[in-house]
């Protein structure tokens, strides 16, 4: 730079990093309310732009060719992915992006390690953590992406001695870390070897951690991987001694942890239980012993229409099934017709409905449902008796009364949307198969429940047609 000597440039760079950190913080704060959220995202992205631009002033950058190549390819892929993805595909894309953040941090750590400049123990610890967390994030996210996009089975996959294998792996990783940091050349010949081994171990660990986890627990996993991608960036910040990486990484790490905690609470399970118990696989065995709980009362759309037409308040409870059937637009149309008919329509959304935190909210927003009619279980449960019709669309475990009534049920204690207390419950469902958790749902057998069998989208569309005719 012509106008600055080196000292001044450094000050400008550092002050800009502080500004960028402030913009990140401000942006996250504005994400806290729907009115300001979009602006908040813009603020946060301008922070990122500033941080990147000012980094390019750094004296150590002597050649821009490769930077341009990387930025162009990355921007193109990012742009295409973000504009082309369907809203139902957002969970797997976020999972994939988490992974990319992780691998980027891993590569930064590796580049620094192999550049071979003066490396003290503190730096080596930071490099080790960056590679470890980045690697786990990357492979874990790839598996999560595979499960969410159903490239690989979403079923929990359990094998005997899983805990032992994981502990062994952790032990070896720890040894490799010790060698990397304190005893270079003890087991391996050079830096490449030890780095390669640590990467490989970290990838294996990430994959083994996510593979046993079932599809319904994915909200927890994505939130956790989100946290990890932040922590990897944070560790990379200690590698290159850069404060903006540390601030931004810690913010993301904290946000991911909070979301993880919220998701766990919503399922009344501990994080360890989600990660290591393979929920679905265990409970299917338990539920087989159960006897049938009575008679199911089916209903057809014509009768359902008559009941809906007379209803003064309707509560819609969407679940993953709505996303699979792509029924959100038909649901919104039905909601509008019901409102025009004089009914009060609300949507009750359970925190773990769908495959990522807030999944249902995004789908309904896409379908133009106003966000002020989306409510949480705590708001609707106390007034459930006053609800005339409750429509459960593709949700199952989050409305299972066993969580309240049956102490032997594996989901006992989980906060649910207590639809069974509404005057009439319609359950839109393909068949009588049990939900992701593999548990029977007594709601289907209650005397106030009517089953509307069939594809959710078709059922809702034919209800819409009834209203219009």
């Amino acid at each position, binding site marked *: 730079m012509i106008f600055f000597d080196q000292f001044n440039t450094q000050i400008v760079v550092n002050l800009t990093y502080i500004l960028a950190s402030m913009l990140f913080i401000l942006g996250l704060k504005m994400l806290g309310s729907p009115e300001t959220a979009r602006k908040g995202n813009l603020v946060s992205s301008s922070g990122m732009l500033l941080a990147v631009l000012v980094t390019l002033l750094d004296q150590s950058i002597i050649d821009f060719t490769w930077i341009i190549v990387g930025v162009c390819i990355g921007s193109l892929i990012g742009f295409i992915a973000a504009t082309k993805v369907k809203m139902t595909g957002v969970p797997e894309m976020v999972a994939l992006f988490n992974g990319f*953040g992780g691998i980027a941090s891993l590569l930064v750590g590796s580049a620094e390690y192999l550049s071979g400049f003066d490396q003290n123990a503190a730096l080596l610890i930071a490099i080790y953590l960056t590679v470890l967390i980045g690697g786990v994030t990357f492979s874990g996210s790839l598996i999560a992406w595979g499960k969410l996009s159903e490239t690989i089975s979403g079923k929990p996959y359990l094998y005997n001695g899983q805990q032992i294998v994981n502990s062994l792996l952790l032990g070896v990783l720890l040894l490799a870390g010790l060698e990397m940091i304190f005893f270079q050349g003890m087991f391996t010949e050079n830096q490449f070897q030890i780095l390669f081994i640590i990467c490989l171990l970290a990838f294996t660990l990430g994959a083994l951690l996510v593979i046993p986890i079932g599809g319904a627990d994915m909200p927890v996993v994505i939130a956790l991987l989100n946290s990890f991608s932040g922590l990897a960036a*944070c560790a990379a910040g200690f590698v290159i001694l850069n404060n903006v990486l540390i601030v931004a990484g810690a913010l993301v790490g904290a946000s991911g942890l909070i979301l993880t905690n919220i998701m766990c609470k919503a399922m009344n399970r501990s994080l360890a239980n989600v990660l290591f118990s393979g929920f679905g696989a265990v409970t299917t065995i338990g539920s087989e012993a159960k006897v049938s709980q009575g008679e199911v009362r089916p209903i057809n759309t014509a009768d359902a229409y008559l009941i809906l037409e007379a209803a003064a308040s309707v509560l819609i409870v969407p679940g993953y099934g709505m996303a699979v059937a792509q029924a959100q637009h038909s649901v919104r149309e039905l909601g509008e017709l019901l409102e025009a008919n004089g009914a009060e329509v609300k949507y009750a959304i359970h925190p773990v409905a769908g495959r990522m935190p807030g999944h249902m*909210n995004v789908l309904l927003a896409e379908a133009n449902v106003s966000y002020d009619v989306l409510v949480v279980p705590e708001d609707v449960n106390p007034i459930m008796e006053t609800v005339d019709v409750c429509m459960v669309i593709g949700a199952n475990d989050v409305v299972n009364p066993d969580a309240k009534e049956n102490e032997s049920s594996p989901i006992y204690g989980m906060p649910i949307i207590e639809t069974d207390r509404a005057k009439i419950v319609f359950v839109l469902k393909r068949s009588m198969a049990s939900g992701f958790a593999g548990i029977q749902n007594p709601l289907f057998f209650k005397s106030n429940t009517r089953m509307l069998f069939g594809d959710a989208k078709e059922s809702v569309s034919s209800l819409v047609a009834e209203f219009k005719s």
Partner: protein
Amino acid sequence: METQLTLLFFVLVLSIFLGFELISKVPSTLHTPLMSGANAISGITLVGALLASGSGYVSQPLTVLLGTAAVTFATINVVGGYLVTNRMLSMFKKKETE
């Protein structure tokens, strides 16, 4: 070196607390955009990637190679993350009073 490290730790701890404070107030409606927005922020590792990628191919071929791969991945994360978040948030609307 030691003072710098201590200072960075100080920054780390404060940021974590700040993060907890900020995020615990976000309503569940916005959890997905929050996550993808936070995800985009974690692409800040791009800063480190740029430094590695620009360190000169002739003297540091390996660093440049790894750095450029890192730049690519981090840019996907940043650009894709912010764009998809913006796309999602643009859909969150309140019904206009007619």
